């Protein structure tokens, strides 16, 4: 929509948008700046809004004294595997929910919605006991399985929106040519839906990467800790070392920001597809 705009209106718009942008970016800027300050500069007045000398000591400390590299690797493995499997499984369920009409469909969609409504913490205790029985406590495979289950409901709803945008003549043509339904899904629909599927995967990956309460409950040895669990350990200590804390925060945020920048348009599309109807 491009109608005429008064000069005052334009000034108000630009002013507001600029202010909000500064407010949004500033915390990220501040944690980044802090992470590059040497220990002495973090705790001195007046605060420096641009570090006098950039130092990497906070980062080197993370990989020397603390085993942050291990935590990053654990998070990467768990999030990548869980994100991928959840995306594949959700594609199947989303496909069915988008293409077929059947009696239990509404019930299934409701069941997916309910998982988003109920505080997941109510499940933490029994989940811990269940994983103990399965001998999957403090085990990366165990966390992967739980994360897959966490990702599936929303991912299904998101992908269903993408499927609905693609005419079903595509896979019908493939099936008439002798493709099985699964073959049609993977050979014909997958290439068309690539951006949507990548967005769904990124959304899953970031959710797993950021997840705190399940990993705190299920992972307790230092070898298996994920990044959020490690961060939780950092802030639980009496005196927080803000130098290494900020460096750790930057390293945690950076990968997810890069991924989101890459896919934000499609994630937005996925988020709004379900809720907005003309």
């Amino acid at each position, binding site marked *: 929509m491009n109608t005429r705009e008064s000069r005052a209106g334009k000034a108000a718009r630009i002013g507001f948008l600029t202010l*909000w942008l500064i407010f949004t970016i500033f915390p990220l800027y501040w944690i980044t700046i*802090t992470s590059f300050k040497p220990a002495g500069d973090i705790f001195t007045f007046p605060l420096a809004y641009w570090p006098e000398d950039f130092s990497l000591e906070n980062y080197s400390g993370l990989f020397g004294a603390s085993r942050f590299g291990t935590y990053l690797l654990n998070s990467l493995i768990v999030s990548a595997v869980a994100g991928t499997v959840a995306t594949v499984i959700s594609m199947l369920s989303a496909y069915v929910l988008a293409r077929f009409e*059947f009696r239990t469909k509404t019930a299934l969609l409701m*069941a997916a919605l309910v998982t988003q409504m109920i*505080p997941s913490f109510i499940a933490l205790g029994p989940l811990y006991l269940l994983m103990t029985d399965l001998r999957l406590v403090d085990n990366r495979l165990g966390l992967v399985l739980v994360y897959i289950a966490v990702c599936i*409901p929303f991912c299904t709803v998101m992908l269903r929106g993408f499927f609905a945008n693609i005419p079903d003549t595509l896979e019908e043509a493939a099936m008439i040519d002798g493709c099985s339904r699964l073959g049609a899904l993977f050979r014909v629909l997958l290439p068309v839906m690539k951006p949507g599927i990548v967005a769904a995967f990124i959304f899953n990956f970031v959710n797993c990467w950021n997840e*705190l309460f399940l990993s705190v409950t299920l992972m307790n040895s230092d070898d298996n800790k994920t990044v959020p669990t490690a961060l939780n350990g950092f802030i639980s200590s009496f005196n927080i070392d803000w130098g290494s804390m900020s460096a750790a925060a930057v390293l*945690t945020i950076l990968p997810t920001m890069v991924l989101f920048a890459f896919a934000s348009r499609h994630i937005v599309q996925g988020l709004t597809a379900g809720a907005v109807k003309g």
Partner: protein
Amino acid sequence: MRAGTAPPPPEKVRRRSGGPRRAQPAEGGRRKREFTTRRGLTIAAFMTPAALFVAFFTYYPMIAGSQMAFRHWNLSDLTDTSFVGFGNFKAIFGDPLWGTVLSNTALWVVASIVPQLVIGFALALWLRRRFRFRGLYQALIFFPWAISGFLIGILFRWMFNSEFGVVNDLLMKASLIDEPVAWLADPKTAMVAIIVANIWYGVTFFAIMILAALQSIPDEIYEAAALDGAGKVRTLFRITIPYIRATLALTVLLRVIWIFNFPDIIFGTTGGGPNNETHIVTTWMITIMQQGDYGRASALGLLIVAGLLLFSVFYLTATEEKGVRR
């Protein structure tokens, strides 16, 4: 997946390879039934993996957790898991923190959601107009969404630090305060800090949802309104808001539920402190759980679910009557 399904009936094979074929009336019923069975099997096969995962790792623990609410279930004494009826609920209502937690939760939800809605709406209205770098701008303000609530809590905890926090520094530079405020040490200012953090995080979601809804309004309506001489304010209240009412109502509902269930920011900033004064229902629930009292924590969890269900029903009825469904 195909292994589970029946081999295709011969006429289907012929149909696939051959040209169009007229269905014979006698065969019609059978073929339809075969088609239905096959269709059912496809649906079941495609749904099964997702259903199994969610049932096993989400629903089962949730249901098992719910029945813990009616038992004495404490990690300190696992030999006694006897049925105690509503004992855990009574213990919660009798807890001196219950009142504080309730009012904190109400404040947390309302004081977070109203600014989120207003700022998000303004952003969406202003982002609807095309300008250079709009794509970049949207990508930048989308960034808070990539960060976990817990880490946002940590970010703001550092900014609101009493001695070396940048918030104090900026406020003093602007002469708004004379000496540093110990934000997180006083429950009142600590609530301000965590709500600011939540607003920072949540505005984007509103902006995105509202912008998408705004873009669905056809331009002709605005052109017609302009021809009829409707002013800006009038257009906003008579056209824009009624048109996107359904989206607004739904977004607010989703956010209320979500903010209610969102202990992450508080967990990263105050952890419910000082002196348990900044707990909301969910952070309190986690604290009780960490103390090992799963029974009481589950009871609180059920109260949260019941509260949210009640709210959703009232809210949906209230917004429905006003004609949300056009």
